[in-house]
């Protein structure tokens, strides 16, 4: 009887381990379109972060990053296979070999860089706060237009202090597992009530119901909301934030120790920046040039 149980447990554990195992065979067999670049390249995205990546009315993935990756894959001589994936489990799933790359508006931060490798950045947009137009927060003057967290000047510190005082006791929304959530926890966590949303779209929904008074997110993804009819009663306020824990722009994340793939991605991105196609896509999807040099 005991032996049976032990055998059963062992079988269970092996099966479980097999589930999460890095599919080495799948990565090497039938690949090598251009030295270590898998074909097809399995790309994970969220599909809920407009205009970076979203799902259109017919259920297809569209957005800046989808177009960008199609171009990148073409330049690498491989085919992109997109998978929609919940945001907060992406990095562990990448580590487990479920796909080859994450392209999901993911900012390059030191914290994440310990777990995955990043390509060169392709866009950079600051984080902004949003509230209803009628909210008194809109009238506040914080003294600076932008706060760079890499090196905080006295004026910037004064703006952060003022922001903390203004937000005291308010309910604030962020998307879970984002740089914005990290910033809110570290700089505002003790003064605001923090609500963490699974997607940016649900956060925007709750801005409209008034459950949250303030939201913090990427400027570009806010624009997607503010330009819709539902967003007409809301606006940016306060300074924009970047640098420091906001990272160094958005990059493509891949598993560690895949130098060939990393080099190929960086080469394709550099080409797109050089020939202006990155800029064109940026203008097409964001309305202005967010491309990184």
């Amino acid at each position, binding site marked *: 009887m005991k032996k049976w149980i032990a055998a059963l447990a062992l079988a269970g554990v092996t099966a479980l381990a097999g589930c*999460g195992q890095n599919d080495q065979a799948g990565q090497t067999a039938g690949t090598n379109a251009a030295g270590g670049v898998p074909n097809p390249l399995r790309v994970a995205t969220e599909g809920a972060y407009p205009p970076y990546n979203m799902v259109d009315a017919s259920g297809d993935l569209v957005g800046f990053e989808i177009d960008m990756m199609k171009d990148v894959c073409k330049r690498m001589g491989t085919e992109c296979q997109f998978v929609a994936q919940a945001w*907060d489990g992406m990095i562990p799933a990448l*580590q487990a070999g479920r796909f080859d790359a994450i392209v999901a508006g993911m900012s390059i931060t030191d*914290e994440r860089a310990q777990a995955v490798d990043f390509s060169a950045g392709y866009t950079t947009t600051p984080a902004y706060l949003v509230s209803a137009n009628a909210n008194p927060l809109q009238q506040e003057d914080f003294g600076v237009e932008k706060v760079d967290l890499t090196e905080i000047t006295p004026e910037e510190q004064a703006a952060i202090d003022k922001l903390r005082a203004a937000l005291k006791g308010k309910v604030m929304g962020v998307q879970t*597992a984002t740089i914005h959530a990290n910033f809110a926890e570290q700089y505002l966590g003790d003064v605001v009530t923090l609500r963490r949303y699974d997607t940016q779209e649900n956060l925007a*929904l709750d801005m409209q*119901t008034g*459950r949250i008074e303030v939201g913090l997110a990427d400027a570009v993804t806010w624009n997607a909301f503010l330009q819709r009819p539902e967003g007409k009663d809301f606006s940016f306020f306060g300074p924009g934030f970047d640098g420091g824990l906001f990272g160094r722009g958005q990059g493509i994340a891949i598993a560690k120790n895949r130098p060939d793939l990393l080099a190929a991605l960086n080469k394709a991105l550099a080409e797109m920046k050089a020939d202006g196609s990155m800029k064109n896509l940026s203008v097409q999807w964001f309305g202005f040039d967010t491309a990184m040099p």
Partner: protein
Amino acid sequence: MDMILSALPSLLSGAFVTVQLVAWSLALGLVLALLVALALLSPNRLIAGPAALYVFLFRSTPLLVQLFLIYYGAGQFVAVRESFLWPLLREPYWCAIIALTLNTAAYTAEILRGGIRAVPFGQIEAARALGMHRGLMFRRIILPQAFRQILPAYGNEMIQMVQATSLASTITLMELTGAARTIASRSFQPVELFVIAGAIYLAMNFLIAQAVRWGEKRMAAAA
């Protein structure tokens, strides 16, 4: 290991939220289920009909959908936002309790209805012969026997409720699963965190299963 130690306080406070959700929704759900079960058994169609519709709706749709509709759906209407219910409905905590309560009450009402119908008619005849009026008969004769009958099935429902609370994290509530997910998203060690979260759920359900077993024994002894 350091990660696990530093994660424990948030996990435990998440577990505390889970316990609160379970306690509230089971308590409120049982009261509602009793009313619905009585309505289901009513010979009056105007009473039994709506009760049957409620049970049908809440048993035939996923709890996740119910939760989403109550939280995001209800908030879309200005009338709801201006009503006296909004102070309750604006809080994810109460939305979760409302959704869980409505869901468990639908299942429990069906369990209770079966339990009540299983009480032998001879018992009711005897109670009537003694001149008991309806209320007293229900309290003394029917319900105690019905409860003994349904306890194993209701124990199942309680255990399922503990697990169902994990869905509350989708409406920003940081219960046990939500806390584990939030920490995992920064530490990138989901396996360790979910093993701990799973162990806490296991402990909770073990206690419930023991309590149900104890209740069964006690009631059997009383019979």
